[in-house]
């Protein structure tokens, strides 16, 4: 039942918050939202090992509303709860109540996605989670074209996901397979099913060359929303690769793994090079996301237990630091009304706390040892190298150097240098804004020092079987 609460409570409350006049109840909405998000966090904590199921279809294949965290998604769900909490506290958009409502609905639908143990439910929430972002883009974003681009790209992915799910159901007879290790699809249709899944996952992640919806979406979406989107929603595809594709059709994933590695490496380099030359702060982070998530794709495609462990670490780490960066950039934008590195500068002198927050987030993103990003990077690459992928490992090291260059450029461009006189500097972080960032920063440091809690996840649940499967072939 906890799963049901996790999904329905945010959705219902979020929907309820959409009613009423625009300017009503703005004040309590933040605290209601934060309270709901906090309760969701503790519910999510308690959800470990629980399951809930209700029969849905029996023909042409069986499926169920079956929810419950898997070994991996448990952490992603926690990440989602933390990020939503932070994002809600960081909301300073107009029509705040509605915005927070959208955030809660996004949380609920993504809870559904990550808790789903049934492919059909997974596909359902895959499309559902697009809607809050879409409406936020229409209501608060700059350009409606962005909203449509986001929606069309991701919905196209959702379509192939649904088709692949249907084909999966017809082939296997049931879609209630996520988190199970005994499902191994074979047949002439499986490559097509895999391609259908992959397309959805690659668009969502996104991976080169399906990424062009992402930079404009990330720069147009208001920061609290994009924090959650980049932190958690972008992990849906990666989670899908691990929990669905690798678990149920390992041989086919293996067949296509070289392509995935190539795409991952190209994303890695491509994103990093572009991030080096952008002037819009949020676009820098967007392209850096492309780069970082490419690394996770490489990790997944390398079929190595250590790399997979690192992928899970890095999924969480990337969620934490990208949320932190986007929230901080949101603070900067709300103060200075610009995101352009050309116009910004010298904020650090008058906003030391803001500078500190951005600094920690940027350092985590560039993989500073001692923060969570580094742990993921080194564990992934160790695994990738161990899997015999020497050149991918070498190429993946280049973006680490580039990351340090563009992240420092971002940080220094905003915070350092002479103070720009015509910027409307207002104030340093207030306590609510600080409270929003605190959980993210603390988690980054704790996981950076000792990520042991996260590595208790047993890769054999997904990988050992697949590896042995692959070996026996």
């Amino acid at each position, binding site marked *: 039942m906890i799963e049901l609460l996790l999904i329905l409570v945010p959705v219902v409350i979020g929907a309820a918050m959409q009613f009423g006049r625009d300017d009503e109840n703005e004040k309590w909405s933040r605290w209601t939202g934060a309270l709901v998000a906090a309760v969701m966090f503790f519910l999510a904590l308690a959800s470990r090992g629980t399951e809930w199921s209700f029969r849905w279809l029996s023909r042409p294949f069986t499926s169920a509303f079956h929810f419950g965290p898997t070994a991996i998604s448990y952490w992603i769900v926690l990440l989602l709860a933390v990020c939503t909490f932070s994002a809600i506290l960081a909301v300073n958009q107009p029509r705040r109540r509605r915005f927070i409502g959208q955030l809660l609905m996004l949380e609920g639908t993504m809870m559904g996605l990550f808790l789903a143990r049934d492919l059909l439910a997974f596909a359902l929430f895959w499309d559902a989670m697009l809607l809050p972002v879409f409406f936020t883009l229409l209501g608060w974003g700059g350009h409606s074209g962005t909203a449509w681009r986001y929606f069309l790209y991701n919905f196209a992915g959702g379509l192939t996901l649904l088709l692949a799910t249907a084909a999966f159901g017809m082939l296997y007879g049931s879609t209630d397979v996520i988190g199970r290790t005994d499902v191994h699809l074979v047949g002439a249709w499986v490559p097509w099913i895999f391609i259908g899944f992959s397309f959805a996952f690659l668009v969502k992640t996104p991976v080169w*060359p399906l*990424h*062009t919806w992402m*930079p404009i979406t990330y720069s147009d979406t208001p920061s609290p929303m994009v924090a959650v989107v980049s932190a958690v929603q972008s992990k849906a595809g990666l989670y899908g690769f691990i929990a669905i594709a690798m678990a149920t059709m390992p041989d086919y994933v293996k067949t296509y793994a070289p392509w995935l590695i190539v795409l991952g490496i190209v994303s890695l380099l*491509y994103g990093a*090079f*572009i*991030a*080096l*030359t*952008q002037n819009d702060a949020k676009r820098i982070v967007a*392209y850096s996301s492309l780069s970082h998530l490419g690394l996770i794709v490489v990790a997944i495609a390398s079929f190595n237990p*250590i790399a997979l*462990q690192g992928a899970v670490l890095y999924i969480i780490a990337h969620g934490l630091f990208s949320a932190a960066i986007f929230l901080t950039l949101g603070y900067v934008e709300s103060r200075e009304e610009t995101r352009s590195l050309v116009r910004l500068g*010298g904020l*650090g*002198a008058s906003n*030391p706390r803001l500078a500190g927050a951005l600094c920690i987030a940027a*350092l985590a993103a*560039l993989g*500073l*040892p*001692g923060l969570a990003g*580094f*742990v993921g990077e*080194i*564990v992934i*690459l*160790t695994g990738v*190298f*161990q899997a015999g992928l020497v050149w991918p*490992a*070498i190429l993946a*090291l280049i973006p*680490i*150097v*580039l990351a*340090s*260059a563009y992240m*420092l*450029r971002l940080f*220094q461009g905003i*915070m*350092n*240098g*002479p*103070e720009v006189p015509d910027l409307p500097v207002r104030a340093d972080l207030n306590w609510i804004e600080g409270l929003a960032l605190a959980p993210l920063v603390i988690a980054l440091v704790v996981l950076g020092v*000792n*990520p*042991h809690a996260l*590595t208790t996840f047993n890769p054999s649940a997904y990988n050992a079987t697949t590896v042995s499967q692959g070996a026996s072939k």
Partner: protein
Amino acid sequence: MTHHVMGVDGSYPLLLVLWLLPLAGAILAWAFGPQLKTAAGWICSALVGISFICAVAMWGPGTQSVSGALGAHQALFSWLPGFDFGLLMDPLSLLWTLIITGVGFLIHLYSIGYMDGDRAFARFFAYMNFFVFAMLTLVLSDNFVGLLVGWGLVGLASYFLIGFWFFKPSAVAAARKAFVINVAGDVGIMFAIFMIVASVHSTAFGDAFAFAGSYNSGWLLAICVCLFIGAAAKSAQIPLHTWLPDAMEGPTPVSALIHAATMVTAGVYLVARCAPLWSQNHDAQMLVGTIGALTAIAGAILGCAQWDIKRILAYSTMSQIGYMIMGVGVGAYEGGVAHFFTHAFFKAQLFLGSGLIIHALNNEQDVRRMGGLMKKMPFAFIAMLTGVIAISGIPFLGAGFFSKDLVIQGALEHGHPYLYAVGIITAGITAYYMCRLLFVTFFGSYRGDVDPSELGIRHPELAGTPAHGADQAEAEHEGSGHGQAHHAPAWIMNVPVAILIVPTVLIGWLMFGGDNSPWAHFFAQQFPHPQLSPAPIGEGVTGLITFGAVLVGIAVAWWRYATASAQSRAVERLRGESIRMPGILTHAYYFDLALDLLFVRTSQLFGTIFGRFFDPQIIDGAVRESAFSAQWLGTLVRSFQTGLLRAYALLLVVGVAAFMIYYAVIAGGVHP
């Protein structure tokens, strides 16, 4: 997989305390800086002092040797199987710990005076303490990942402190450059870690070294080269040295602690720590030794062409680290480490001494605008004089002589006569440029009131003088109305310098006595000692040859800068020398330009092509074209929707007809 632990396992609370105290100080000063005000400086210094005391107290466990395990080992936690973390204190790390906390403590004290009145006083000490913590992490770690964590964190601390005055664009750029180049080095170490984990499934030093003999030699060479990329970046070895001179944008105590005494020697530590790996591979030794020697002589030559006092010291640091790297590279680990040890004292001494001058002259760093300071600042003169004696290697009068001799002789003993020659020549050049620094700064008459153009100062920012942004820096530095100039440094700045004079002069005697010296005893079990054939030239003779080179250097410097005629025409001579300085030297062999073209510009070009052309034109273009073709298809289909009833009927009937034809002709008619 057997688990090899270096050091005796156990619980060593002192080790944890000495490691974590500076971190506590950093957090304290960072979080409560505004409340603590100047107390932050005292607290942070005290914490580093306590760390030093703890390090001294760890002498016993750190040098113990029980059944082949040397030193003390404290296990901490584990990320994954193979990624185990712990602290290791053996003679090598003990030595580094003592220097980091001991010299660090003195420099902290000095900083209380130097940074007095700075708006971000507490922040400075937070960074300094953080640096000490990070450096301790680096040297105390018992595995490569922990070392890499420390490696990255000292880079961060260095970044913060170089860019401490972050309103200066030059400081910001220098900080970023230092950080990025160091990350390039980190990446090298990361790759070495991949190879090690792939071989031994563990990151622990013990496991990696126990396996050392059985590595494939190409593989081992690759590991060593990758490790050395990290070492070269951190220790400013050619070609990754370009960040070090720029790093002088940081406050002078920072230059003393980080960019002279401790952090930049991390590469030496790494090579010495991985001695079991290097000893197995002659090619790796050759490579490292050669690069060390090249850096030594290249840095020394550049030192002769600089006018910024801190840049001279920076190139001298680069050159001296070249010595150390050469030492540990060729296999003379004791020698290389010994040079680190003495260098830490005399270079800190030199930097702190120059800091006294800079502080007193209101941030003036150009030696051409100094002169005649001997009478104005006798204490600074003495401090600098002892430092110059030590670094130049004048026999028995300074510490540098003993350690440099160990390195040069070591090169010969391990069969590298060319490196030996380079070492001796470099010693002569070192003596020349250090004496040049001393004579130009302290002899003659004061030139601070001479118009810069008469001294040949054309581009102050290129010469390293803090020109743009300097006003603000000064305003910041003098923030609390501290008066225009510090003509009398506070005692707090003089005491650490005075204390440092003692080891600068005397510490070298530890290394006197060949194999029976206390130094050799200390490291008896640390490093591999291969059987070497005796060198063709004895140690005493080497000392004499070196001394000859040093005398030549001093004589040239004396002739050019210190004779009466040279001093009377100092302004014209300096102007002439500035103007006639070859471009290859003023631009430091164009390394910056080459790196900029090769890496920075290339990356930016890629980024621009991808971001401005590939993304919008090719990828989005393809998407747009497919959208257009869908639109075209729609227009095509739309043209059938004429609204004409009869046209619809026609289409319908044509469809029916098509079906009929299909069944009648293609499907072969009706079969009852």
